[in-house]
């Protein structure tokens, strides 16, 4: 297997954009190619496009060739769309990595895009109810907010986690996103604002939930031994983990403990040959405030049930036990489904380059992970990156 490096990438500004799906693609593609030295789109022989629901949001399938056409890419080895709902972008990176590592391709683009703002937002919400088992769970109105609301309710019931502790996750991530020029939300959100924001599904207020977001991003992958031809500052993929247990609510391993995430963490540490303590930055999938709290626990930074105390003590801030979501997270940056994992990965690259504003810069960072969950948190996906070739 060949070692694989990411040599650059680019993204759109995220948020409610006055732009179509294909315009987001063009914006991000231009930024991506302009970030990489000595590159021609014609060199790209593999294109993987993370797109969660283009067939519902913009009524278009077969979207990978559409991205290829708009970016002047003519793949000769591999082209496909990757769908894993909220982890669709990470699926794109994983397959692009596998293409390069196996020798199947020599230059791959992992792209991600989602256009989620629709003229009728009830239609956008409808799309989210076919994420869980639509005939048996979605039919009950069970989209992401009510599912994670019940997860939060059980976590509060079993471990005494509080709404204040959950709100503190939102406070932290919105704080970091004020220093991220492409973030959807760039205002500080104090605890009171979380409590005063509209109730979506108790115990979750609006600011406990990540946004509906338009956005796109792409990164370029090459064999590690060729990385320096394209940039002075590549980063290296050093390991990964991914696990799935069940799908319908009845078949989840547990509501209050994310066992697939624990498995994915174990696998990541093993394949990357690192310990938890060596991780300097974690881009976690904070689709809801409760998610990040449960992720502190599943990764092992906090004991089971003590994720709430962990944020209360400031441990997931830069300088604490782990710098969690210094990008601003999904809560601060928005969550354009297919693009999210690419945006996380791109920000790690910028962190390693020392290319982020001081207030959210993790100095001397060497090792980072990006994490995505999807569905009813029944799938967890992690990638591990290193600033230097290990």
């Amino acid at each position, binding site marked *: 297997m060949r070692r694989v490096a990411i040599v650059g990438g680019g993204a759109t500004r995220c948020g409610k954009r006055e732009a179509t799906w294909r315009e987001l693609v063009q914006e991000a593609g231009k930024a991506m190619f302009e970030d990489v030295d000595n590159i021609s789109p014609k060199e790209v022989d593999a294109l993987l496009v993370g797109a969660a629901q283009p067939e519902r949001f913009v009524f278009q399938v077969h979207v990978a060739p559409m991205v290829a056409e708009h970016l002047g890419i003519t793949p000769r080895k591999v082209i496909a769309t990757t769908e894993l709902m909220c982890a669709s972008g990470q699926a794109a990176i994983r397959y692009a990595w596998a293409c390069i590592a196996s020798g199947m391709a020599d230059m791959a683009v992992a792209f991600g895009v989602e256009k989620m703002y629709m003229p009728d937002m009830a239609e956008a919400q409808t799309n989210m109810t076919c994420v869980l088992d639509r005939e048996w769970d979605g039919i009950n109105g*069970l989209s992401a907010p009510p599912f994670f609301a*019940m997860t939060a309710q059980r976590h509060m019931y079993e471990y005494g986690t509080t709404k204040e502790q959950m709100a503190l996750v939102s406070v932290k991530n919105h704080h970091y996103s004020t220093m991220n020029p492409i973030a959807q939300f760039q205002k500080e959100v104090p605890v009171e604002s979380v409590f005063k924001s509209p109730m979506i599904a108790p115990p979750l207020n609006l600011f406990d939930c990540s946004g509906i977001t338009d956005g796109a991003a792409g990164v370029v992958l090459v064999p590690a031994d060729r990385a320096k031809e394209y940039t002075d500052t590549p980063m290296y993929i050093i390991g990964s983990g991914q696990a799935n247990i069940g799908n319908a609510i009845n078949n989840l391993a547990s509501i209050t403990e994310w066992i697939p995430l624990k498995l994915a963490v174990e696998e990541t540490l093993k394949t990357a040959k690192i310990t938890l303590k060596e991780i300097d930055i974690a881009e976690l999938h904070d689709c809801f405030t409760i998610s990040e709290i449960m992720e502190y626990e599943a990764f092992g930074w906090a004991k089971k049930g003590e994720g709430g105390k962990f944020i209360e003590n400031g441990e997931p801030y830069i300088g604490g036990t782990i710098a969690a979501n210094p990008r601003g997270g999904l809560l601060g940056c928005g969550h354009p489904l297919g693009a999210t994992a690419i945006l996380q990965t791109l920000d790690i690259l910028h962190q390693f380059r020392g290319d982020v504003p001081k207030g959210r810069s993790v100095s001397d960072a060497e090792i980072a992970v990006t994490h995505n969950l999807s569905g009813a948190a029944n799938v967890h996906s992690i990638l591990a990156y290193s600033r230097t070739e290990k």
Partner: protein
Amino acid sequence: MKKVEFEKLKRPETIKLPSMLDFYPLEDEKNTRISPFFSNLKERRLTTTRCEECGKVLWPPRIVCSSCFSDDLEWIDLGTEGELYAFTEMRLGAPLGFVDDVPFCIGIVKIGGLSISARIDNAKYEDLKIGQKVQLKVVELDDGRVFYRFDAAKETP
């Protein structure tokens, strides 16, 4: 040069809800091999499939056992009383077809050894409690299709 024509088009004011945007599944034997689930539900029975070979109780109902791949499955009753494991109330962000129902309660109900999601009727969020009993209820659409919900109302003594 000829004048460019500008014609106004008319579109139908309403269209029939396409079946794939209708959350309720097609239930009859022409469309699904688990149609007994729905005919049982019409008789006020909540049922699912159990594998005759390995004994595994499967939810949602199946036609092949996911443990041993036997297709020898039988229908079993899950009972009519469940226990509320978790619940919430949809207040904002409901999907099409549910907007008029807002606010409505959703729960995870333990019944017959399973944990299934369901609408919880006859309840406000503030009145519900983890662990409380809920009763099976059947709803019927105007075209005769049925689905299950649970009712949280306490029986009058």
